[in-house]
């Protein structure tokens, strides 16, 4: 792919009268560190685009287009539909009904008595004990109670954003690197690197094996880091994966444990989507693997850390609830002190401690949430199929990893950007191009499904279908499409007829 060049989002005027910190210069250099996504306010952290040639203006304009013309069922039915936002909006009614039945939690009251003063004053970085207890129980429940978590090892932080950065501050520094499998959440470029000085070295994963991590890829990444004179401090994985929507297999997890044991490094498992696993295979947490391999109380046990959050599972990103779970007491102690820089509001801790302590509620919520996610995902997949588009088989997350390689004019990232622009401007769907997630293969897109109604999803798929039907694409043979395990793809020309896609033979995906 060549050396990536970050895109400028903001230019920094060269001021002579005062000096900014090098960090600020890095902000300007590095495209505002994912600022673009958040610049727009209510989107996911997507905003960075690695491409040697793309002018920043084109990229920025895509997001501006959504802002200028956001879809609304009633007010603006021809507007751009937001599918780049990994939010879970499907289960608010469950939360709202719980709130209606539990007025005390909402109003700073416990057993009818006001505890406002205690909450207003509570800033202990050890966190509200009732909340931590409820949180670890919830985490265990999500994992089918196959593992138990100790509340004294949990550190509360202002969202997973803060948790990931804090772990970096604890585990690494300038000159160090963490290995991350691609494709990965673009926000990591900011969260792991920006203020910490730590580098990310990608573990290249490809569609040839459904983007799973291989031993070879791990070793290659490790060597690459060494060639760059970086000291590898650990591996960070997101499980379930963003943007793939898949859970890691036991083999992959075993591979990781072996790797970090051999290299004597850390493993961070960002399990922010652990509660969104809606179909089999069941979620296997890294903690379960360690337990099953009897690695408790070993050196490697203390080098495994989990990041969690309620932003995706409960759909509460605004509440800024993140957590670090570590088996290393020194890490817990250091991270706890660091959490001073981003504690969770006591008002929010109290509300959620009541909610998550209600085991009847959590059981019902987890089950219903899964069902709804699964249903919505199937609708997306079916809609994509009708448009002749396939996606990676997935069982988790709030998105699908969609394969539009056959729609590219060439097997390049430039072609990916061209296609992306057309989808934003012409199809009026805002989806995320794989290059923003550091995917090594052009043509993949992340498409979110959990932040809209069924009707909106239906409309989005209709638009997509029309679009695919109207463009001339390079033709591929049937054989080529089926044979997705080949490493090198030859280019074929393929012209779609203007017939309805129902007539077209569907590929097995």
């Amino acid at each position: 792919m060549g050396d990536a060049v970050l895109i400028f989002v903001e230019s920094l005027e060269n001021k002579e009268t005062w000096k900014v910190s090098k960090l600020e210069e890095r902000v300007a250099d590095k495209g505002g560190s994912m600022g673009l996504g958040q610049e727009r306010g209510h989107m996911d952290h997507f905003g960075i685009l690695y491409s040697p040639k793309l002018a920043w203006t084109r990229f920025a304009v895509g997001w501006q287009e959504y802002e200028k013309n956001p879809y609304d069922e009633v007010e603006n039915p021809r507007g751009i539909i937001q599918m780049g936002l990994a939010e879970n909006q499907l289960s608010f009614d469950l939360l709202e009904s719980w709130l209606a039945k539990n007025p005390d939690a909402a109003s700073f009251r416990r057993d009818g008595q006001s505890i406002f003063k205690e909450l207003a004053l509570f800033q202990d970085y050890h966190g509200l004990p009732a909340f931590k207890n409820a949180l670890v129980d919830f985490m265990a429940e999500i994992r089918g109670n196959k593992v138990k978590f100790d509340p004294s090892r949990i550190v509360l932080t202002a969202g997973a954003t803060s948790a990931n950065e804090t772990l970096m501050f604890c585990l690494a520094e300038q000159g160090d690197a963490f290995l991350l499998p691609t494709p990965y959440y673009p926000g990591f470029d900011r969260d792991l690197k920006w203020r910490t000085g730590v580098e990310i070295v990608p573990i290249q994963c490809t569609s040839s094996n459904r983007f799973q991590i291989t031993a070879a890829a791990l070793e290659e990444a490790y060597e690459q880091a060494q060639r760059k004179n970086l000291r590898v401090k650990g591996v960070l994985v997101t499980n379930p994966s963003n943007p793939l929507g898949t859970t890691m297999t036991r083999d992959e997890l075993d591979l990781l444990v072996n790797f970090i044991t051999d290299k004597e490094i850390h493993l961070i498992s960002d399990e922010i989507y652990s509660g969104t696993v809606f179909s089999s295979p069941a979620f296997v947490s890294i903690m379960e693997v360690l337990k099953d391999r009897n690695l408790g109380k070993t050196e490697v046990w203390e080098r495994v850390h989990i990041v969690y959050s309620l932003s995706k599972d409960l759909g509460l990103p605004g509440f800024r609830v993140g957590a670090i779970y570590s088996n290393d007491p020194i890490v817990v102690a250091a991270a706890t002190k660091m959490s001073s820089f981003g504690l969770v509001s006591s008002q929010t801790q109290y509300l959620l401690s009541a909610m998550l302590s209600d085991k009847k509620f959590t059981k019902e919520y987890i089950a219903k949430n899964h069902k709804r996610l699964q249903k919505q995902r199937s609708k997306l997949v079916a809609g994509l199929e009708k448009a002749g588009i396939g996606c990676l088989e997935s069982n988790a997350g709030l998105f699908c990893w969609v394969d539009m390689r056959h729609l590219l004019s060439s097997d390049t990232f430039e072609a990916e950007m061209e296609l992306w622009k057309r989808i934003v401007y012409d199809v009026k769907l805002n989806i995320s191009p794989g290059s923003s997630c550091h995917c090594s293969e052009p043509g993949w897109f992340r498409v979110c499904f959990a932040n809209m109604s069924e009707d909106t999803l239906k409309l989005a798929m209709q638009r997509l279908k029309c679009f695919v039907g109207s463009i001339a694409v390079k033709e591929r043979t049937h054989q080529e499409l089926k044979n997705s395990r080949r490493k090198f793809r030859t280019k074929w020309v393929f012209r779609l007829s203007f017939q309805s896609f129902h007539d077209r033979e569907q590929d097995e995906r």
Partner: protein
Amino acid sequence: MEFTRNNNRQLLSKIATNDRHGENTPYFEGWKAYDSNPFHPTQNPQGVIQMGLAENQLCFDLIEKWLLENPDASICTAEGVDRFRDIAIFQDYHGLKEFRQGIAKLMGRVGGNRVKFDPNRIVMSGGATGANETVMFCLADPGDAFLVPSPYYAAFSRDLRWRTGLEIVPVDCKSSNNFRITRTALEEAYEKAQRSNINVKGVIIANPSNPLGTVLDKETMRSLVSFVNDKSIHLVCDEIYAATVFGSPRFISIAEIIQDMDCNRDLIHIVYSLSKDMGLPGFRVGIIYSFNDDVMNCARKMSSFGLVSSQTQFLLAAMLNDEEFVGNFLRESSKRLAKRHHVFTKGLERVGISTLKSNAGLFFWMDMRPLLKEQTVQAEIELWRVIINKVKLNVSPGSSFQCSEPGWFRVCFANMDDETVQVALERIREFMHQGKEEDGVSEKSKHWRKQNLRLSFSSSRLYNESLMSPHMISPHSPIPQSPLVRART
């Protein structure tokens, strides 16, 4: 396990294993004593009274009343739940517009309505703790330094230095001129730093001052602005105690000063919070207000690491936009702080203890120099141990604020009820009286040296604390977080 622990320790960062968080200092002894023997009016009347916690507990009744009258300020009540979804997904780092408007209005009001603050310049952070650290990340690089007039808030050493890699160069202020920050002292500190090849990037002050409880006068502020302007370095003003001013002279925000000065506004930055003025440290509301667009934009992106919970933003937006409530709250809070301050300082005066004249903050700066056996930090610590152990008051020794003169103590007065105030005063009276009775004032110090100065921990009488352990330590207290905090459930 020790071997593995050490092995793994080498795999951690320097930041995780160094002491620059400042919490491994001897000062937590005071907290130990308090934690193991906390005062309770009925269940443990002989316990240690907490006077090291700069919290404002005087006006909760006003806020509680407002909450009862405004159920729609909560997104979780029947009245407010129709906003639940929108707020629950709101993670925009620009913050809720109404919240920013409320904060801007409050800041303007607290500054005497002489300045208007722009809501679009308001940037959130994880409390003032997060704000100060973020501002440092924006303004300086590892190895750079900030000048900090002493005595200063002890946790600055963590907030400004720990993860940022910055250094603090103290600017010593003396009691001879009431600890005023002089141009001379600033220049001296700056030059000294230059000679040691330390790159000074700015000055950070707290106005009103913690621990002094005083407000800066116009002349000093103008002098500060002109100093940073001359040197092209930054000025960060932590105005966290702005609304705790309870007498004259009035609080003047740096924003007001620069209105009438010819200076480079890109050098000026304000830190604010609701933790002291409104008594809401648990809600983690920190604010950065910079006059520099690049700093503002950078800080806003960094606020992702410490946004204010949208649930809390929503509640506070409603509260702070209720101008009648805010006006009433500020007036009432000032009144109560003034009264409490008066009761204490007069009480101390009567027994011969003087305090620095102050009109702000949640504490006073107590002068115990006459009671030191010698003017050394060691003697100050000895006296401190006596105060904790014998008088059973947890106060904060001046050395924990880097005060260059031994013998000063910060005593908090706004974190207790009226009865406890009387108990505290009574204990001080008794203690001073005892000293006088024995051999006259000059013998007081000899008397103490004979005492067993070791701390005794009587853990037998711990009262039943509430679920939330309300005596948790404020990060703005000079004493590090007690490692002995116990989970209560």
